């Protein structure tokens, strides 16, 4: 899969989504697993665009990479917005409350971490790097 370099704007989310879908097909993922991966990536990308860039008054791009190994599909998002480690958010504590009593928001990161086999984050040389790993189905010999 080619890398995808897109502006860090909401308009780019659908391109990122299509990109992840295509990577999932290339990696032979089950449809359900693919959907979850796309959701996970989309949530983080949305956070980058809204909180990392727009709300911080910054602009920048998002680099989307996919790497297929024997065992896994790895999707990487890189951006140059404010450093933010999604893992620091934890599980929202309002998830069991009725909807009308909930604060708006806080679900995205939860969905992300729940939906991939492994999620990693690092901040290197001014870049946020979000790494999503899902296992590929074992090929029967």
């Amino acid at each position, binding site marked *: 899969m080619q890398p995808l370099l897109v*502006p860090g704007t909401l308009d780019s989310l659908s391109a990122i989504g299509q990109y992840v879908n295509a990577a999932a097909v290339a990696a032979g993922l089950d449809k359900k697993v693919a959907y979850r991966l796309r959701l996970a990536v989309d949530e983080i990308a949305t956070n980058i665009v809204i909180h990392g860039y727009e709300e911080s008054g910054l602009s920048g791009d998002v680099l989307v990479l996919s790497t297929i190994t024997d065992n896994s599909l*790895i999707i990487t998002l*890189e951006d140059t917005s404010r450093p933010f480690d999604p893992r620091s958010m934890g599980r929202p504590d309002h998830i069991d409350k009725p909807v009308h009593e909930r604060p708006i928001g806080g679900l995205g990161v939860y969905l992300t971490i729940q939906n991939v086999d492994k999620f990693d984050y690092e901040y290197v040389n001014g870049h946020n790097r979000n790494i999503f790993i899902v296992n590929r189905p074992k090929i029967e010999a």
Partner: protein
Amino acid sequence: MDDMLRIDTYPTHIFNEYGLRPGHPYPFGANPVPGGINFSVFSRHADYCVLVLFKKDAPKPFAEIPFRGMFTKPGTGEPFWGDFRIGNVFSMVVFDLNIEEIEYGFRMGAGYPKVERGKPGFQRFDPRSILLDPYARAIGGRDIWGQAPDWNNIYQHRARIAYDDFDWESDRPLEIPAENLMIYEMHVRGFTRHPSAGVKHAGTFAGLKDKIPYLKELGVNSVELMPIYEFDELEGVHNHPETGEMLVNYWGYSTVGFFAPKAGYAATGKSKDGTMVVDELKTLVKELHANGIEVMLDVVFNHTAEGNEYGPTISFRGIDNITYYLLTPEGYYFNFSGTGNTLNCNNPVVRGMVLDCLRYWAAEYHIDGFRFDLAAVLGRDQNGAPMLNPPLLEALANDPVLAKCKLIAEAWDAGGLYQVGSFPAFGRWGEWNGKFRDTLRRWIKGDSGIISDLALRLQGSPDLYASRGPTASVNFITCHDGFTMLDLVSYDNKHNEANGENNNDGANDNNSWNCGCEGETDDQGIQDLRFRQIKNAFALLTVSQGVPMMLMGDEMGNSQSGNNNMYCHDSELSWLDWSLLQKNQQLFRFFKNCISFRKAHPVFHNMWHLRGQDYLGTGLPDISWHGVKAWNPDWSESSRLLAFMLDGKHAKGGQSQDNSIYVVTNTYWEGLDVELPGLPSVRGQNWYVFANTGVNTPEDVCEPGAELLLGKQDHLFVGPRSVVILVAK
């Protein structure tokens, strides 16, 4: 040792099916290495760079490879992070690519606000744009002149890779001393595009090559090619509001890529093979050299084809806008070039690119010299202010590879900086002498009050180039920019209506005179006078100290119908009509003989300024001035006659022995009887007439060496508006 393979011929990283390894930052561009291609591109401000690979002409890339990302290890397939960047240079080797098949570009992204078209901004990164490598050595996308591309293609000017494996045999740059040059300024396409040129590949490098015998016969020994770096003739293409003529960028002063020859100027352009285009131009250079003709390129480093805030993103502005361009404090493009933007030439990185570029042309194309368009821009600092010691000009003057190249400045810019005579020369730079052009034009049309100025111009402008010598002065009366020689004597005013700008474009101060009727006429008297005036101008050009330059076609009386700004016409108006050669044979003969006369006489080739003294004790000063009376020049306001004598024994400061030459120019409307200076009797010589524009052809000029003995040795009748050249032997 054949079985030893270099260790770096193996990939260390895998991305999809591509084997990669960290690349070499230098040299920039795409360079073949064992097993692969090393891609290297600078950007100080980009966070992301992605290599984009296309098959030739393909609308979509077949691969995109990031310079940083999650790769896998060969063999184990283990994922790991890789970053192919050193400093501000992204570089990586990609293995197993077919050089002949691919085109490449870059996407770059960074954390800067997106700038809308038409708005100011310091960075214009847009990862959706595919960017041309500034170091691309061959560029596709405009492979055949004038052929409209697919405007929807996301990648318009497409970098290709060319081999540098041309067999030059024993060719080298000719290194003709500057004082011996006779420059012919020409347009590659216009020279042979007209059907009358009769060449197989009209309007191309190959077509020009077929005309080398003609250039040789004319006698020029340097061709200055108007821009041949890749440009887009379809840039700003539009139709004339009234005539409907398609107007294009015919001249090409708008560079797309500084390292690539214009594919549309190559007969092999249609092959879409970068190496073939490169080799066609190299073949031309080699063949010109074999015929004793140097090649000078007109290079445009003051701006690029990317225009202003509304212009297209082709390369530089998407790679590092603020590095490559001069920007106002608000982020608008400074416009010292008059074309929308200004290259930031004294930024060290851009300076490095200019140097790399010229070295490449000198080393790989054997180019003999460069003429720098609007060179005053090259001396402006990063805020646009003129510098006393511009580092770029100094670096060029002292560069080891360029050491024998001619460096010639058009010493002004469109921002009002006029540096004729004061261009920072570092002992190396010559200049297009605009004052020579203006003074000679005014003198020839008969203006008074400029006789002392004329004397300075004829001597190589010692007032302007005191320390540099006459070879700093490139003397010209006509060039591509302005009237042709015939139009200079046929029109009082410019006639640029065909350019579609209501005659508002082009210079107004042409110092021209139509000889009695604006434009074409059947009046034989006017026609004769015009031809005489052309001969007067050319004769004075060839007897002046300095480096003469003539415009293509002037030798056959080429006209542009009074248009003095032909940049946008690709038609019979701009193409050279070779049938004129037959029609105006007498002009060609006059030009040819004047060139050959100049070549034969070292007195015209001084490297140091004349002193007006007999410092060698030969009995004559190196140069002496005369009027109607010998030894008595009339320097008064109303004077319209001036004569000078060059002493042959002072030729080149006495290093050469030559005949003495006497030149008289009369711009008075009546003939005058002129007393000739006597030659020292010990020499036992007589005056012979080489040229007399006041008489009809064929008596107007001789073959050098076959001059006619002057009947009366002490007096000469000089016709109205005439030049006479005598040689003592």
